[in-house]
């Protein structure tokens, strides 16, 4: 009986959190459209997020490309279909694996960073100090960060995808003596507008989700250092869950358009 009660309580608090997150998102859109605009802080955030995550995204992308090709090659060889490798890797990386894995990596790197930074600012009263000085902290801290992740995550995903494809090419070049031109010609021949567009749109939503959840968790962080840790941790967990939900919805919607 108490087990059912506990599940019910958890479900209720989950729904409450979804409601609060939706309200937070609504406030974001309201504040984002209202002047004054914090361009300088937005540029600083874009630079900081891009700069801090580029190496991580590059290494992750490169390893994905290598591993995917090395794992798939023996099976394709068995069926005499190794020439399909660039098409297969290209489509899978651009449509699904690239955006999803890069977004998860960025959720860990950027989302937790935002959660911890804003959480720390909340517990040390820096957000209150900002408000007392007449600056709208929501606009200065939250709007700029969400906008920066929405713009930078797609860019990082594109770079990550390109490096993943290069990693895949290196394996093909070493094992199958395939030239750079031939490999990438095959990749781009197999990719269609319908592969790239949904993946790009999806990556903007991923970026928005990473910024939104990170800011939400940090901005409403509970007092104390434990609260900061919890904010950073729950930002990653909640964002990861949200990324899978967005991915499912994006694939579902894209599938409807394919059928049309």
């Amino acid at each position, binding site marked *: 009986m108490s087990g059912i009660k506990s599940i019910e309580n958890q479900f209720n608090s989950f729904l409450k959190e979804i409601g609060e997150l939706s309200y937070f998102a609504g406030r974001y859109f309201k504040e984002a459209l209202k002047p004054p605009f914090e361009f300088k802080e937005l540029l600083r955030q874009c630079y900081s997020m891009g700069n801090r995550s580029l190496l991580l995204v590059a290494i992750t992308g490169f390893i994905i490309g290598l591993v995917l090709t090395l794992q798939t090659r023996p099976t394709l060889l068995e069926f005499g279909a190794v020439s399909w490798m660039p098409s297969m890797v290209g489509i899978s990386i651009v449509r699904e694996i690239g955006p999803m894995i890069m977004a998860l990596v960025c959720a860990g790197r950027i989302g937790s960073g935002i959660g911890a930074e804003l959480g*720390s*600012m909340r517990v*040390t*009263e*820096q957000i*209150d*100090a*900002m*408000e*007392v*000085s*007449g*600056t709208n902290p929501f606009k200065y801290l939250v709007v700029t960060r969400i906008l920066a992740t929405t713009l930078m995550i797609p860019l990082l995903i594109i770079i990550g995808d390109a490096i993943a494809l290069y990693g895949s090419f290196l394996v093909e070049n070493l094992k199958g003596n395939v030239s750079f031109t031939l490999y990438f010609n095959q990749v781009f021949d197999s990719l269609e507008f319908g592969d790239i567009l949904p993946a790009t749109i999806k990556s903007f939503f991923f970026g928005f989700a990473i910024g939104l959840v990170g800011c939400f968790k940090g901005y409403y962080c509970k007092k104390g250092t434990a609260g900061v840790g919890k904010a950073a941790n729950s930002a990653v967990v909640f964002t990861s869950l949200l990324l899978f939900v967005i991915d499912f919805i994006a694939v579902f919607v894209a599938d409807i358009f394919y059928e049309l």
Partner: protein
Amino acid sequence: MKETQDIANQPKNLERPPIVLQIKDLYKSFGENNVLNGFNMTLYKGENLVIMGKSGSGKSVMIKCLVGLMEADSGSITVMDKDITTLNQETLDILRADIGFLFQGSALYDSMTVRENLEFPLRRHSEKFDHKTDTNTMVIEALKNVGLESAIDLMPSELSGGMKRRVALARTLILQPKIILYDEPTSGLDPITSKEIILLMKDIQTKYNTSSLIITHDVDCARYISDRMILLIDGVDYTVGTFKELSASNDPKIRAFFKQ
């Protein structure tokens, strides 16, 4: 009704300067916990008013209600003839330029240098000053007031606790406020640094003729700086008087504060 005992001589009230800040019947509770139960206070121009109370007695809650960081359940808060509980955000932000707030933990922005910390409040309240006034000159002047002009390009992490408190005071002063609110200005500091901060607060009051509301449980701080004191007990202004009057009281509740 609350049981305020105004120990200060009544005739003094007739000679009082104008009121700059007044709280009437302030109530604030968090769930079942009633923190403020009809708190009243009046701050006169050029006065140093100390509010003493035990930890958790609602001192910080009261000061946060005063600047609009928290919403009171009921009661009125009048700052320079404006009831802040009825002001819209824009008017409140303008009024906040006349209220300086020194936070308990200094609340310096971690990611900014000392110079940027001081410039931050100016970006929102530039209209308060002559357009020809150089920001750099204002920052240096504010730092000179606290004896820290050499720390202008340091990060907050490179400063000691006392230096942080001084920089926070300089940030409070840069907008040339008419009222300064100090939330535990000496907490966490050694006795020598505490004394330095107290003397600095006195100097500032003399130099700029500001009115100060000081929240503390440091008896030495209260002795040095207070013109009048209020003891906050059980959410009400239990008694009002000078340090000398209150420290000579036979009331056990009042005596408990001075036994420290």
